[in-house]
Each structure stands twice: as structure tokens, then as C-alpha cells.
């Protein structure tokens, strides 16, 4: 099952590279729908009560180096995988309607991208995770560099260098973890379960923790490491940007939950405050910047920084409520931000600009588009009733018990989200139409992509338990790894 989810995207991508150009787009879209179908089947067959892995695949890969081809799924990755498949299908379809130049390359790269992200979510071997994590970059390098706008080559190289600086250090850190562990166990293994069973002594956890954290924080991007984001967002083609912003940061947040918390519990406790501060600064900085931007892409981009700040807070609240909310919020944010970028694509085509000051009045003759955008906006600002509200509520709730001050400040972020989200909606949809632009309803083709996405948003809003219930057991397991490490010390300190 998991093998199929992994192989369908890459298989279809490679096959379609040898098909006549005409067939490439339909075959690719079909392939992405098949992947989506597989993930739905996966959800249906998932047993919510089990905290551990399901559908495990475990094959030898490079025996000499202790690397195994180990896949598995649990409540944390389940919906992230489904979200990935959904957004990729949307992006494939959107791109297919607007046939890009050199479609073979384009769809091949998208397929490799889906393969890599799926691999990162499913990998249960640390090295395999690092491999897929690095591989993710390659297709995006080509997509931004070949199909982007503006100063795309500079932007794409900047993105590559920034993110690989983190990832390569992570590779060293992963290797060091396995080697140091093997010195106690006597056997070299990168399997997450083995590494978790024999955590490292605290001293070596520290630097390894930061190597991993650097990779993840760059990818998110978190506050001081977001330098690549504005350029890359400005240049990236919009259907690709929906993925770059919707899915890729989640792999990083997921990495914290999957790798850092269970394997480096002591370092996690030690640096909890620092990461929380980074998360908090990201929220405030992202929100403020989102409010100040006039480029619509960057508004959504900076709002992502803020949202990812929330997710970081949730993960590092080290409470099961917070982490549970973070998992829900990861799915939510992906579902919300992707349609935002696609709607931006519609608007940009209509206005011929991406400057907020030159937009307005799009809603006058386009009620359906306006309604869709309104729903998405409401979800972005976490209106009560949306799944984002529940996600943020869980995160703040989890944070409140232990770190009240952070929770209080983070509340400000919730309020600021309302500002920038509504500003984006109002300035594009309401007000007066600029001269020479006509308000038109979006085409059926665009609706065929946007409507299902919005329906899914509504679905998760109505029934978030679907995600929460399946995530709960696994999240508790991961957070429990840290709290278990905390107790011996915390217990002693608390007693007198």
C-alpha cells in the first residue's frame, strides 16, 4: 500500500516523460488522482486505536551502512499524506488546464516532488527521511528556476543554498546520531525505533538537536531563517507555490514531531523555551509583515510564517493537546493556503498585476469566486466553526497550562490574522474595479479545482474529530517520549 503511494507518482512521472506531449498532462492528472484514491483507502483502513506504525514496509537497502528501506504510517502522518496527495492533484489539474511550456519536464518535476514529500512523510528510517527531505528540493529548484517569473535563477539558487545548508548539516547530524548510538548498542542502525530505544547522552544531543532544528526552521521558514522566502515566493509559478507553501513547511514541522522529540528528548526540554520564542517571534513578525505587504503572494507568504509559528508553538508546548492541535493545524494550513494561491492566480490573470493596490472589485460579477474566497479567508483567520479555530484552540490550550505567557502573546497573533486576511479579501474583492479590468466569474476549469478544495475545508470544519481522533494516540506517544525523559529531573526539582 505505502509502496504504491510512493511508486505511483514517480512511476507516472517517468512514464509520461516518454509519452507524446499531448498525453502528458492528462496522464499526470490521472496518476495524481490515483494516488489520492490510494490515500483515501489508507485512511479508511487505518486503525485509530493503535499508537504505533501501521502498514509497515521493512526491506534491507544498504546493509553495510545500516540503512533500511523502512516505511510506515501512523496518526500523525496519515492526514499529512492525504493532504499532500490532495494538493498535488489540485496542482497537477491546475497546471494541466494552463499547459505550461515544456510540459514533460514540468510534470516530471512535479511527480518527483510528490514522490519525495510522500517519502519523507512515510520514512521510518532516519537516513531515508533525510534523503527524501533533501530530494524534495531538486524538483522545486527546477520548477522555480525554469518556470518562474522575475529574477527566477537568483531566487531559486538562493532557495537551494539556504535550505540545503540546513539539510546537509542534518545529514551529518543523522549519521552522528546513528554512529554514537551504535557505540552503545554495537549495531549500526538508522531505524527511528532503534534510535529512540537508545537515546544519546545529553551532551551529544545538544549540537545534534541544533543541526536538525536548523534544517527544519529554514524549511518552515521560521523567523531568523526566512531570507529565501520572499524571493522564492515572488518567482515561483503559482500552482507550484501552492505546494511550496502548503506542503513543504509541514514536512519540517512533522520532522520535529517525528524525529526531534522522540530521539532527542533531553535537548528538546533544554531548548524548549528558545524554540518557543522563535515560534512566537515568527507569529508576530509574520503577521506584521503580512499586514505591510502589497504583493499578494507575500501577504500569503508571511501569513504562512505566522501560521507555522503557531504550529511550532504547538509542537514545542510538549503537551499532547498542543501537539494534537499542531497536527490538525498542519493539515488545515495546507488546505487553506493552497486555494489562496490558486485564487491569487485567478486574480493575477484578471488584473495583470499582483499588487494589492491595483486590485479591487473582483466580486461584483463573480459571486461564486467571492464565496469560495470568503470561506477560505474565514478559515485562514480561524473563525470559530472552522477547523483552524479548533487547531489554534488546541495549541493555545496546550500552551496555557505550562507556558501561560507565550499563550497570551500568541493570542495577539490570532487577532492579527484577522487583520491581514480580511485586508487581502476586501482589497481584492470589494472596492472599485480598476479601470480597464472586468469582473468575470472564474472559469469552470478553475472551479473544478477550487470547489473540491473548499469542500474539503468545509468537511474538516464540520468533522475535525476525523483527524484529531486518529492523531491522538500517536501524538501522545511522541510527546510522551519527552515527558518521560523530563520526569526524573522534573520530579526531583519539584519535590522540595
Amino acid at each position, binding site marked *: 500500500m505505502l509502496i504504491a503511494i510512493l511508486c505511483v507518482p514517480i512511476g507516472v512521472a517517468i512514464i509520461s516523460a516518454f509519452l507524446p506531449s499531448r498525453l502528458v498532462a492528462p496522464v499526470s492528472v490521472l496518476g495524481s488522482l490515483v494516488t489520492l484514491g490510494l490515500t483515501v483507502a489508507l485512511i479508511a483502513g487505518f486503525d485509530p486505536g493503535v499508537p504505533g506504525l501501521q502498514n509497515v514496509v521493512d526491506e534491507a*537497502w*544498504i*546493509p*553495510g*551502512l545500516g*540503512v533500511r528501506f523502512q516505511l510506515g504510517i501512523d496518526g500523525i502522518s496519515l492526514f499529512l499524506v492525504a493532504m499532500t496527495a490532495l494538493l498535488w492533484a489540485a496542482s497537477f489539474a491546475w497546471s494541466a488546464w494552463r499547459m505550461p511550456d*515544456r510540459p514533460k*519536464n514540468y510534470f516530471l518535476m512535479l511527480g518527483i516532488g510528490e514522490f519525495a514529500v510522500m517519502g519523507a512523510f512515510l520514512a521510518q528510517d532516519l*537516513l531515508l527521511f533525510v*534523503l*527524501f527531505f*533533501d*530530494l524534495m*528540493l*531538486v524538483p522545486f*529548484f*527546477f520548477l522555480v*528556476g*525554469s518556470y518562474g517569473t522575475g529574477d*527566477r*535563477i537568483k531566487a*531559486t*539558487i538562493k532557495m*537551494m*543554498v539556504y535550505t*540545503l*545548508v540546513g539539510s*546537509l*548539516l542534518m*545529514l*551529518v547530524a543523522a*549519521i*552522528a546520531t*546513528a*554512529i554514537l548510538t551504535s557505540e552503545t548498542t554495537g549495531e549500526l542502525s538508522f531505524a527511528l525505533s532503534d534510535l529512540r530505544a537508545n537515546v544519546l547522552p545529553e551532551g551529544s544531543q545538544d549540537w545534534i538537536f541544533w543541526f536538525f532544528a536548523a534544517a527544519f526552521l529554514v524549511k518552515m521558514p521560521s523567523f531568523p531563517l526566512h531570507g529565501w522566502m520572499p524571493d522564492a515566493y515572488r518567482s515561483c509559478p503559482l500552482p507550484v507555490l501552492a505546494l511550496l507553501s502548503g506542503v513543504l513547511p509541514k514536512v519540517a514541522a512533522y520532522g520535529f514531531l517525528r524525529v526531534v522529540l522522540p530521539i532527542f528528548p533531553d535537548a528538546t526540554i533544554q531548548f524548549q523555551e528558545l524554540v518557543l520564542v522563535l515560534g512566537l517571534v515568527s507569529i508576530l513578525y509574520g503577521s506584521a509583515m503580512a499586514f505591510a505587504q502589497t504583493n499578494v503572494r507575500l501577504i500569503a507568504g508571511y501569513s504562512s510564517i505566522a501560521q507555522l509559528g503557531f504550529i511550532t508553538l504547538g509542537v514545542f508546548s510538549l503537551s499532547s493537546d498542543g501537539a494534537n492541535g499542531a497536527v490538525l493545524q498542519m493539515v488545515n494550513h495546507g488546505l487553506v493556503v493552497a486555494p489562496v494561491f490558486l485564487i491569487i492566480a485567478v486574480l493575477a490573470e484578471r488584473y495583470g498585476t499582483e499588487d494589492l493596490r491595483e486590485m479591487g472589485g473582483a466580486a461584483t460579477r463573480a459571486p461564486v469566486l467571492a464565496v469560495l474566497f470568503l470561506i477560505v479567508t474565514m478559515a485562514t483567520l480561524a473563525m470559530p466553526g472552522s477547523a483552524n479555530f479548533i487547531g489554534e484552540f488546541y495549541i493555545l490550550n496546550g500552551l496555557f497550562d505550562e507556558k501561560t505567557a507565550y499563550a497570551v502573546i500568541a493570542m495577539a497573533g490570532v487577532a492579527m490574522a484577522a487583520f491581514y486576511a480580511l485586508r487581502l479579501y476586501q482589497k481584492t474583492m470589494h472596492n472599485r474595479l480598476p479601470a480597464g479590468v472586468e469582473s468575470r466569474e472564474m472559469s469552470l476549469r478553475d472551479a473544478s479545482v477550487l470547489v473540491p478544495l473548499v469542500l474539503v475545508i468545509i468537511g474538516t470544519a464540520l468533522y475535525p474529530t476525523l483527524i484529531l481522533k486518529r492523531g491522538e494516540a500517536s501524538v501522545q506517544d511522541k510527546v510522551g517520549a519527552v515527558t518521560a525523559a523530563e520526569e526524573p529531573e522534573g520530579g526531583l526539582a519539584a519535590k522540595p
Partner: protein
Amino acid sequence: MILAQAFNAPDVDYAGLSPIIALTVGLVVVLLVGLAGRAQRALVSAASFIAYGAAAGLSIWQFGEEADLVSGALRLDELGLVATLISILCAVFVIPLSWREESADRAPGPGGHGEFQALLMASVLGMALLAMAQNLVIFFVGLELLSVPLYVLCGSALRRRVSLESGLKYLIVGSLGSATLLYGLAFIYGGSGSTDFTGIREGIGAGLADDPLILIGVALTATGLAFKLSIAPFHQWTPDVYQGAPTPVTAFMAVATKAAAFAVFARFFEVALGPAVGDWQPALAALAAVSIIVGNVGALTQSSLKRLLGYSGIAQAGYMLAGIVAANEAGIEALFFYLSAYAFMNLAAFAVITIRERETGFGDDIRSIQGLGRERPILAWPLTIAMLALAGLPGTAGFIGKLYLIEASVAGDFTWLGVMIAVGTMISLAYYLRVIAAMWMRPAYLSDPTPEAHNRVLPAMAGGSGELGGTPGVRCRVILGFTLVAAFATVFFGVIPSPLVDFVSGTGESITASFG
């Protein structure tokens, strides 16, 4: 006793020597066949293929054997055989590359192809000897046999000034390296009283620092080897020579020389100087780190692809040196895994450069590949894969190789060197990606090519023919085939690395077995 031995016919292990014998015979045959006149290219190529095929086959036949040959002067083991096989692979690859190459096709004498291939094969023979050398004398003989033909080959494009310059420069610097090395070997012999690696091992004891003779000897030897391997700070000749030499020769030199020289490097340091490991490890680690930085930073601003690969080769040599610094079996295996992978990716890159040199008038300038992705994706893909692999991105053999090397250095308590490899890789991305960006993200360079300096024709008096180095518009199908195979292998061994891991798995044990 000695007399009695002298009167007995020496016992020669012909089976163990068979790869060397095959190369020697092949060398003579190729040289003679080269005189055939009209059909010389086909005949010479066929004869070379057969000779390399025989040598490779015999090496594979001997794979797994372990023996001392010729009274212990040569050591037959997997370490030597793997290095020999890598060299042979490169040489085979260079055969089609040399077709239509000026130095072979339009050589002044009658046997251009024969001479070219015979020189190449002599160099391979030197590499085989060097990889098996277990004795200071053979060490030096092998190294010279490897180098001298290369000096000639670098200058073999007689009508191009830079090629002559390259040959001369390589000759001078290379001789300096050889002399330094020889001087060092003499010191080591003086200090330890033996020319055999195992004898030296017994002679030096545990500390190098105790005996200034040995210390000087080791330092000079390491310097000489570093010259050959273009390890910084002994690398200055590399970019010039790489750029000036005919591209097929550069392709051969970049990989095969490294394979053989690293084999003897590993053997010399870990067998002969094994007990003093603590003394040389930090020094070599420093060399590796300097090399990684110098190579990667130097490559950043290059616009000639061959220079760029030259600098990148300096950095890559630094990565590989980490395998020796680690001083464990995993390190040696990592080194040879990386070398094998490096062979595939580098050959793919050089082949594409060769093809473009002949198709366009830009020589090896980066402009020659601009817009290649749109124009000729079938050429752009191999070069893209090669660059991604050199940068060590996942999905390619380069990633597994780096993984292997970092794992070995961390296991050998050189975590900081592992971090250096990662840092070097980051810097390297900037220039490897620039090449990819040129191919896929920039339009083709359209304006008329002006004859570049390296293409400038010498006057007819000096043997000039009035033509440019390349013939624009030539299609090179055979080379393309080889290129695709190399690129495919790069990806294949990145996804399924086990065959290559198995191939090198015995090299680590070879070291311990030879003194055990």
C-alpha cells in the same frame, strides 16, 4: 641460502600478474596496429577494447585472491584490483571520446590513434602497478609510468597553444612532485632500513616524531602524492592543465589518476605507517579540510567548465582523503565507493563537454551549454545528473558516496571533518547549480562565437592546419551512448547502491590482511 634461491628459477605467479601482462601486451599491439594507415582508428579502438576487456576480465577473475607477487613487490588484493578496474573503466570510456579529437585524428605522424591509445594504456599500466605496489621502488616506478604518458598526452594537441602549455606545465610541476616524492622515499628507506611496506611498518615503530629522518620522509612523500592528487595547497597546476589538455585526456586524468594514487596513498599510510596513525591523521585531516575549502571556493567564479571541474576535483579529492583520515575499514571502502561513483559522474560530465566542444565554437566555456535543456535535452540530462551527483544530492550515487564518507569519518572520531564535507558541499552547490541553471533556465547563447584563445590557430609553419579545434555541427552518437550509460549508472547506484557496495566491500579488509 641466498645463493640457493638465486639458482632456483623464481616462482612467478602468472595468474596474479595476468592483468598487468594483458595491459603490457595490449600496449605493444595497439602501437603496432596504429601504423595500419586508413583503417587505423577502427583497428586501434578494437585492439584497445580487447586489451582493456582482457585486463578487466582477468582482474575480475583474480578478484578475491590475496597474494604477494614478485617477492612481495606487488600485492594482489581487492584494493589494487578495484583501483585497476576503475582506471580501466575510464580508459575504455576515453576511447570513443578520442575519435575525431585533434590529438589523435590529425596528429602529424602516421599513427595518431595508435600513439594516443598506446600512451593511454601505458598510463593505465602504471596505475595498475601503482595500485598494487607494496614496495617503495614499484611505488615510484608505477607513479612515473602513470605520469610520463600523461605529460605527453596533455600536450598532444600540437596545434593548440594551451595544450602545449598544459603539457609543459604538467611536466614541470609533475616532475617536481615526483622528485619530492623520491626524495621522501629515500629518507624513509634511510630511516626504516626497508623498501617493503611491511618492512617499514616494522622498522618505524609507533611514533613518527621520534625519528626526524622518517618524519621528513613521510612529509615529502605525502607532498609528492598530494601533487599527483591535486590536493590543496599543492593544486595550483590543476585548473590550467585541466583546461589546456585535450578534453578526453582531462576526463581520464581527473578520475583514473585519483583512483590509482589514492590506492597507493591508502596502502602506504595504513600499511607502512599504520602504527603511527595518530601522528599523520591530523596532518592529513588538515590537508583534506584545506582542499575542500580551496577547491570549492576556487570553482565559484570559473566560466570554463573544465577549470570548474578541475577545482571541483580538488574539493572532491579533499572529500576522498577523509576516507583515509578515518583510518578504518569503512573509510577505505567509502573512498573506493566514492571513486567508483565519481568515475561515472565525472565521465558523463566530460563527455557532454567534449560533445559540445565539437558542436559549438565556444570550446568548454559555460556558454556552450546554455539553453541545452530546451535544445537537446538528451545531452542536458546526463550533465544535469552529473552535476547533481557531484553536489551530492539524493537519488544519485554521489549522495550515497558522501554518506559513506561522512559515516566513516564520524566513526573514526573525525566528526568535524564530516561537517567540513557538508560545508564544502554547500559551497559547491553554488557552482554546480549554476551549470544546471545555464542549461535549463537560460536561453541558448546565439551571437557568433569568436575564436577563443585556446582555439587560436598556430601558423602553418608550426604545423597548423588552419582549422579550429572543433568541427561545429558534428554529431557524436557513440559518445552520447556512453554518456547516457554513465548517467544511468550514476542514478542507478544512487537508488540501488548494493552492487557497488559489494564491489568495494573487500578493499577495507585488504589493508588489514596485508600485514595480518
